[in-house]
């Protein structure tokens, strides 16, 4: 488990390669990368706030849960905070497993939990308006699917 909360950008390619190089005997590697979308065509930047202290603890707990549920070789979570522009990468997760199903499911699980259970809040800032991104019911529903 490699958990990083940082303001600095990360390099998807470099992180994916480095993650892959750390795995042995794994047949499958999945990565997910989340990117800032400019939904209305007016976004100047996004401001991501987090709860220092709790954030890494929460991400670690989610990753530990994933390792308990699936047969994983390794996992990586990188999540940025601070100011991000359109098309900037916000975060990524990576998982490895002997089997593709485990690697996929664990990555989806990490994303679903990270989305609604890790203390990050996004604010969208346009030239003449700003607003906090609202949580979506479907993200909460996604968690229920894992609890069945």
């Amino acid at each position, binding site marked *: 488990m490699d958990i990083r909360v940082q303001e600095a950008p990360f390099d998807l390619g470099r992180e994916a390669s480095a993650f892959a190089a750390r795995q042995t005997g794994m047949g499958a590697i999945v990565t997910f990368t*989340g990117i800032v979308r400019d939904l209305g065509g007016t976004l100047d930047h996004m401001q991501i*706030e*987090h*709860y220092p*202290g*709790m954030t890494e*603890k*929460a991400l670690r707990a989610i990753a530990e849960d994933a390792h308990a549920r699936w047969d994983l070789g390794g996992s990586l979570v990188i*999540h940025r905070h601070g100011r991000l522009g359109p098309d900037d990468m*916000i*975060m990524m997760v990576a998982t490895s497993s002997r089997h593709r199903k485990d690697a996929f499911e664990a990555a989806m699980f990490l*994303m679903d939990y*990270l*989305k*609604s*259970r*890790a*203390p*990050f*809040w*996004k*604010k969208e800032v346009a030239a003449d308006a700003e607003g*906090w*991104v*609202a*949580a979506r019911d479907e993200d*909460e529903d996604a968690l229920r699917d894992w609890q069945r």
Partner: protein
Amino acid sequence: MDVLYFAWVRERIGLPREKVETSAATVGDLVAELRAREARYDAAFSDLTALRVAVDQELSDFDAPLSGAREVAFFPPMTGG
């Protein structure tokens, strides 16, 4: 006890954290004390279904006990990822 506010809760109350002297037994009691202070607190806590709480950096409930707690944080539903 340290009380922390994030996102629009922080903006509405106007500060990110403060020390609070309280003997509140539960999170709900603490919320009641804060609401009684000033209009901005009352407004921030007017709809608890729109809020989440963490006690000592663990997600918790509004009826959770506060005995021994050092840090309580209030914030809207999280929007990471």
